[in-house]
């Protein structure tokens, strides 16, 4: 059953990514140049709705959610994010959006996946060298915001989620057009 659920989640995710335009490198670059915030606002809305629903279910039925928190090893997570951002702006793809792009018939997405496979191979071979300086130090473990803030997670999720939704509603979707008129 899990296999079926996972495929269905993937199909839905692929369709939503295609519809918002996130599988288009051109749209990604418009977002990173802050000319069109459609994908950024889409992602923030996704996160806000997701956190509210996640913690509402968790509060109503503790233990049913399959939460899986990634460890916060500060150096590797931050450095990995900085490297990721350069590749994101250069190619205009994420590891998932290029797979969606292949379904749309994009050949540069196939090339991005090839680059990703080589990147994974190089990381795999370098891992024994990188683990001590970058992954083991400053490892805070699988921490969440509620571990630092004395509020019930559902209250925290509502506060942050609603705050994000209000902010996204206030932000213009195409700031460049307004300035250019």
């Amino acid at each position, binding site marked *: 059953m*899990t296999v079926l*659920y*996972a*495929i269905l*989640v993937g199909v839905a*995710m692929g369709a*939503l990514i295609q519809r918002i335009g996130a*599988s288009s490198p*051109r749209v990604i*670059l418009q977002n*990173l*140049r802050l000319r069109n915030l459609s994908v950024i*606002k*889409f992602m923030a*809305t996704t*996160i*806000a709705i*997701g956190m509210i*629903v996640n913690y509402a279910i968790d509060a109503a039925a503790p233990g049913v959610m*399959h939460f*899986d*928190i*990634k*460890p*916060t090893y500060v150096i*590797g*997570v931050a450095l*990995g*994010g900085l*490297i*990721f951002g350069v*590749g*994101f*702006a*250069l*190619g205009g*793809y994420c*590891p*998932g*959006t*290029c797979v*969606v792009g*292949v379904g*749309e*018939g*994009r050949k*540069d997405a196939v*090339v*991005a996946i*090839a680059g*990703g*496979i080589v*990147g994974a191979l*190089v*990381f795999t071979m370098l*891992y024994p060298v990188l683990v001590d300086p970058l992954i083991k130090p400053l490892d805070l473990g699988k*921490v*969440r915001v509620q571990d630092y803030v004395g509020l019930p997670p559902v209250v925290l999720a509502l506060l942050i989620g609603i705050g994000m939704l209000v902010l996204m*509603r206030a932000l213009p979707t195409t700031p460049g057009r*307004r300035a250019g008129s």
Partner: protein
Amino acid sequence: MSPTATMSPAPVTAPGSGPLLPPWALLGLLFGLVGAASILLFGPIGVSGTYPRVIGALFRLFDGGYAEANPYLVKMGALLKPETYLVLGLPIGGFLAARLGRGAKAPACEMVHAMERSTGLRYRDAFIGGFLIVFGARLAGGCTSGHIISGIMQLSVSGLIFGAAVFASGIATAKFIRQEG
């Protein structure tokens, strides 16, 4: 000419014209529900771990000794995880959404930077971009879906650090690269 007359490119975003949400809000709402449903059904969405699992599967076929000796391939485990099926669903969703949508067909090769003067140069950027996003994501332990979308919707600290690093570096890189045309 009134500057406000041209502000709204899509009719659905016009305030007060109807109950429809702008595309980013509607699609974000749906993706938020899909993300929470995924955690309820089997676990958070993620993509980039599949790349090294493919590497591991290839090593097991051709050089099983290395697959057992490399600590990262051991840590990432076998290929057939729910996440792998999710990744298989992505191009199906992208294909269906592109076919059923009214938009123009996606270009096979989409230029995003002024320096991409030929298809070959675009493929170079897509390849290097693909390399960096997967290398960075594996160093950080997740990508846009695993760290930013599912991570932050579970209120994980690692997702917040990764997201801040990706957008800081992505926006800076996009501004630094000479803009298109």
